[in-house]
């Protein structure tokens, strides 16, 4: 990459009117993985597609590297800029008012599958509708505005604060995936600032197969500026069923076998929007957390010593989950309870917080997106995982998808090389213990493991990404480092430095 003096680059950015910051920007050193670290010296904050075009023109002309970043809440490592690259913070794109200030209150533009504006007040529940949003918008703020009309974004990752651009770049999964698929399947239109040998080119993609092909691009193909994202009606309370199923056992293998068989029956007989599980221990919420006083939920947080408690929560249309209570009744060890949507959200908040980090500790991903394809093997998988984990910090949790049980575990570590390596080594032991054909466990690699996403991906996936890059980024300005053979050197497992 041809170097350009920082002073000249600053002058170019000033001339372009794009907001930026320069210096040793430690505040952007990582994503949520801490497995890929890079302190950028320049970050740009484009506000709209026009400014994205200017940035890409600059990049092509001066052979600069651009690394797009949404919220930076992912773990793939793609939102971290190596030295010399420009980090492009996309959160303002399509989310600013005329003063250039990010506005969380906005009027969502709703369109149909043809892109024609629609009046949400007149929409019917079965209509196929999309919200046309800037890539910098998040699910949370969009859902807040849609909720007035009782609609919601169809697929909302548990990090509802991730940007839509980021959701598309990582092909995120979340609430709604069991019904609608991963995020890329819910996108009907994408606007993208790609590159050419002459500069930027703006593309509008409406072919659903091409959109799916690009989903999970991790920033390699361009700056996504706008998307049409599927929305779904919020059903009335009596139309929805939310339920919590829990089991206690000192024998985690037996616990897992029971719940695995239950989940197999549920997947065969029910359709649902969300199926999430977590293991509850005494310290999962603070002693003064109000949930402990909830008359329905409070009891779940008093766990007898020596016992593992797994809680599995579902949300779906009542008519599509008619069989759930009957299925639960077939498993006498399982406690079934119907809960309100508000209580379901409370449990999701516990799950989200419990899988997080302490301030002086970080989560070290490495055991995520393990899909147990045969739920009958779930007990064996759990037994091996708990044995390997021992007394390490971290909480096992996951999703129940129709095609399998997805398990996540992240050990916690202090931000020191030795501790991160120890946590990483635990991850390696866990992977060794459970990524086995006889256990029917496959690593889906959705979240990514820092840059190991690219290092360890199957050859076919790397070839796919290279093909996409050649088509959309012939100037090789977007994340040029990520497909290099030397990417391994920047992965914390081999070289952890800040």
């Amino acid at each position: 990459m041809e170097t350009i003096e920082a002073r000249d680059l600053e002058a170019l950015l000033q001339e372009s009117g794009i907001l930026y910051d320069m210096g040793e920007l430690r505040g952007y050193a990582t994503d949520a993985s801490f497995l890929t670290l890079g302190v950028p010296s320049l970050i740009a904050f484009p506000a709209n597609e026009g400014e994205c075009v200017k940035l890409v023109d600059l990049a092509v002309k001066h052979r600069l590297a651009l690394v797009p970043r949404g919220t930076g809440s992912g773990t793939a490592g793609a939102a971290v800029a190596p030295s010399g690259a420009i980090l492009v913070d996309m959160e303002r794109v399509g989310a600013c008012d005329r003063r250039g200030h990010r506005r969380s209150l906005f009027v969502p533009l709703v369109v149909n599958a043809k892109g024609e504006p629609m009046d949400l007040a007149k929409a019917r529940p079965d209509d196929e509708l999309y919200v046309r949003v800037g890539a910098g918008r998040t699910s949370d703020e969009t859902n807040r505005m849609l909720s007035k009309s009782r609609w919601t974004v169809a697929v909302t990752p548990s990090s509802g604060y991730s940007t839509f651009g980021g959701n598309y770049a990582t092909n995120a999964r979340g609430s709604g995936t069991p019904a609608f698929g991963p995020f890329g399947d819910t996108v009907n239109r994408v606007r993208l600032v790609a590159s050419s040998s002459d500069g930027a080119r703006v593309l509008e993609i409406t072919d659903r197969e091409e959109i799916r092909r690009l989903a999970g691009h991790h920033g390699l193909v361009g700056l996504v500026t706008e998307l049409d994202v599927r929305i779904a009606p919020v059903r009335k309370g009596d139309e929805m069923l939310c339920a919590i199923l829990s089991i206690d056992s000192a024998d985690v293998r037996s616990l897992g076998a029971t719940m695995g068989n239950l989940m197999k029956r549920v997947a065969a007989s029910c359709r649902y929007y969300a199926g999430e599980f977590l293991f509850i221990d005494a310290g999962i919420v603070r002693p003064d957390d109000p949930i402990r006083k909830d008359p329905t939920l409070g009891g779940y947080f008093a766990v007898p010593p020596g016992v593992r408690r797994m809680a599995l929560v579902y949300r779906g249309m009542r008519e599509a989950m008619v069989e759930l209570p009957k299925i639960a009744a077939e498993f006498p060890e399982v406690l079934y309870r119907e809960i309100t949507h508000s209580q379901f959200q409370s449990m999701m908040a516990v799950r989200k917080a419990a899988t997080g980090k302490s301030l002086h500790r970080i989560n070290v991903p490495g055991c995520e997106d393990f899909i147990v394809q045969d739920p009958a093997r779930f007990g064996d998988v759990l037994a091996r995982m708990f044995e390997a984990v021992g007394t390490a910090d971290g909480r096992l949790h996951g999703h129940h998808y129709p095609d399998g049980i997805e398990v996540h575990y992240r050990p916690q570590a202090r931000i020191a090389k030795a501790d991160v390596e120890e946590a990483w080594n635990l991850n390696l032991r866990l992977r060794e213990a459970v990524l086995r054909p006889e256990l029917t466990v496959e690593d889906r690699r959705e979240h990514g493991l820092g840059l190991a996403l690219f290092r360890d991906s199957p050859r076919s996936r790397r070839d796919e990404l290279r093909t996409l890059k050649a088509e959309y980024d012939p100037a090789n300005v977007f994340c040029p480092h990520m497909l290099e053979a030397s990417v391994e050197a920047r992965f914390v497992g081999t070289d952890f430095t800040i």
Partner: protein
Amino acid sequence: MTDAVSLQVALGPAPVARVDPALQVLTAEGCIQCNKCTFSCPVHRVNVLFSPRKVILQAYLGGADDVDESDLWACLTCGECQVACPTEVPYPAFIRAQREKLRPVMERMAPCKHGGFKEIVSKIMTRPNLNQDRRAWIGDGLKVADRGDVIYFTGCLPYLDGIFSYCDSARIGRAAIKLMNTAGIVPVVANSERCCGHDALWNGDSATFETLARANAKWIKETGAKRLVTTCAECYSMLRYEYPQVVGDWNGLEVLHMSELIEELVKAGTLKFTKPVEVKVTYQDPCRLGRQSKEYDAPREVLRAIPGVQFVEMDRVRENAMCCGVGAYSNCDAATKFMQQDRLEEAASKADHMVTACPHCRIHFSCYLDGKPIDPLPDLKIVDLTELAAQALG
């Protein structure tokens, strides 16, 4: 003993060990780097370079010394981030702790705006030999006492009009006394009262805060009063939640915000609103009363009880309410003006009066309207809840 309290005498019980629970929580169950705080932050909306997440990451990658001084003071400590945070990281407490820690090494004092007026007033009130006339603003026809069951804690009210003359904050105090007199209460208004110390505490000057707290606690306890009422959300948060950590338990003294007292008196039938006040209003939740003290309902009940008032909520209310743009008088700049414009546009789209329950919110918004707004705004009046309630008395 005269009202001129000697602060050299040990005041109150021995101080409770100040183990900051906020910091303990921060280290035990803290930031997961999700960035939800940043998207909730009103400062970030107008200044994209400011990010609570970035500040925390810098702090624990580089140590507290790595926190940029401008980031330290840009924070309003409004708590919107804490409400949004999945792990309820007490970010305002974290900022407060950093301000206190870094205060000795900072090149300048906390940037108190308006010529440092509020900070100077607080400092003056730490002096032991202080003669104040805290009743001059009350006027005729209103009754106050030296001793009694109910204290009216006026805070900085007697001094605010010295700078913010266009606000006439003393009207709030007169309205409060009128309401209490009508309900048969003759409140204590004491010349020995001091500034509550809110700004000192939030700007990292715990020494000044503790001096003020001890001085206030002494005279309050000497009155033998059973209740203390204040019309200021900041004084309320200090007296109710922060003072006990410094001066010990209040031993049965009940601390109330004026909205809570009015609500109670109306429900008991002791106070009756007989004169309609025909206005369309919306309500601005003050940060210290709302998010920090969790009192969202009493002010709303008071508004609903006033005949003739048409009450319309804004979109961002209660725990999601947007700050008035100034925290502890330490930040008031271009970013503040944009925030205030944003909030006032929202208020003006709903009503022609914006009601608030904190004299400082009223001052900050009024100050903006009295100056040159960034964009034209419909005619919007900023009025205090207590003042509005007093208008409804027959």
